[in-house]
């Protein structure tokens, strides 16, 4: 049933993209890769992802946040999973625990890197079948 679902994956780490792509394709998803916020913006200008996996720190420390805003503005129904591993390095620490934080972080789920295969797939299924 995941056959015709397109996942946009955005990360500036090639290996993170590679890993996510392998897992998602094995699970039957179609994958579109973007290596930067700019590349992802370009992609969404021409196509609609069914779900997006977005890394936080790319060109700028908050590139992922900005991208999430843009995706949600254009496709409000597209669920977004944000992947982060930055708390300890950038001091940006957040959790979608409070209403205020949820309204600010335009992601439907936050996962910490490294993310386990089954965890990622479970979260995807949950968001795609509300």
């Amino acid at each position, binding site marked *: 049933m995941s056959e015709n679902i397109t996942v946009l994956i955005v990360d*500036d*780490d*090639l*290996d*993170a993209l*590679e*890993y996510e792509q*392998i*897992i998602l394709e*094995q699970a039957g998803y179609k994958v579109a890769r973007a*290596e*930067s916020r700019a590349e992802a913006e370009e992609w969404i200008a021409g196509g609609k992802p069914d779900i997006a996996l977005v890394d936080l720190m790319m*060109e700028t420390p908050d590139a992922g946040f900005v991208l999430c805003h843009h995706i949600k503005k254009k496709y409000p129904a597209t669920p977004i999973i944000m992947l982060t*591993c930055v708390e*300890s*390095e950038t001091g940006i620490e957040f959790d979608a625990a409070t209403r205020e934080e949820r309204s600010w972080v335009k992601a439907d789920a936050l996962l910490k*890197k*490294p993310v*386990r*295969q089954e965890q990622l797939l479970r979260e995807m299924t949950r968001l795609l079948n509300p």
Partner: protein
Amino acid sequence: METLKLLIVDDEPGMRMGAIRTLKDFRFRVRQADAEVALLLDQAESGEEGLEKIASDAPDILLLDHKLPGISGMQVLERLPKTGREILTIVITAYASIDTAIKATKEGAYDFLSKPFTPSELKYAVEKAAAHIVLTRRAQHLAEERKRIRFDFIRVLGHELKAPLSSVENYVSLLQNKTLGSNLADYEKVVQRSALRLEQMRKLIVDLLDMTKIESGNRPREITLCDLREIAERAIEGVEQQAAAKQVCLELHAPPVLPFSADRSDCEMIINNLVSNAVKYNKDGGRVDITLNLDNSTARITVSDTGIGIAQDDTAKLFNEFVRIKNEHTRNILGSGLGLSIVKRLVQLYDGEVSVNSEPGAGSTFSLTLKSEPQVQA
């Protein structure tokens, strides 16, 4: 200009007036700290009043009479706040008794003045205390700054080590879960990328150790007559495979022998780093020109490439630690971010200079000078 607060506690009005008159416009230099010091004066006529003033606004220097009508100077010393900024106390004694001196020192007095004293004796004692304060604070500030730099370094290092580690962990989990099935051939890319990331990690650790060795200063250095040409030839050999894969052509422009008095491994690290960067950041089919010459006791090394180049804004930070310019051209190039920072540190050891001239898309030229080290006769 630094202003230090000085409180005079003495029951004799004449003493207080005299001290204030002497110190009011007293300005002096703490030469070792290159600081100009002025004093902000206050006075109290009893130990009780003194302690109140200290509690509300602690002075830096306390000029304290030993013999006071209410609580004694010794009791004031005992009751000084033991936490927070240190207060340097100069105890004024009527008779320079050894007994008083020992007791006061035990309570933490910094210095003594025995009555009667001249204005210049007072100035001298205050100047000495002020210098102590200024220098101690400078040292503390420096230690904190060092701690902060160290902490930042470790934080970034942690990140740089975690990134390849996470990638390899991810890839291993794919193998563990047989995500791509049981055919090992299907994992070729996964294994190849893992190996590459591990190699990057090893390079980072090796560079880090090199840097630590240079920084510690107790690395054994052996100053001998090294042939820079030969070192450059070896560096070229070292990158041959990488260069061939990208069809990068390397050319060495140097006299047949170039004897230079230095530590061989220093020169190797410098030249290897620059040559390897010139290949790594080059375009397919590009070229690298390495030019060496010797002018009296100064060696000039220039490594020019026809690579991706560096934007003007980025060149300034290029020699800092962990700076890897991130853009679409560098994404697939692995590096530790320490190579150029090592080069800079080494060049400084030889009283030299390193600079870069670059044009994005056209290439970069790294130039450096090294002054030869005197050879130690065995």
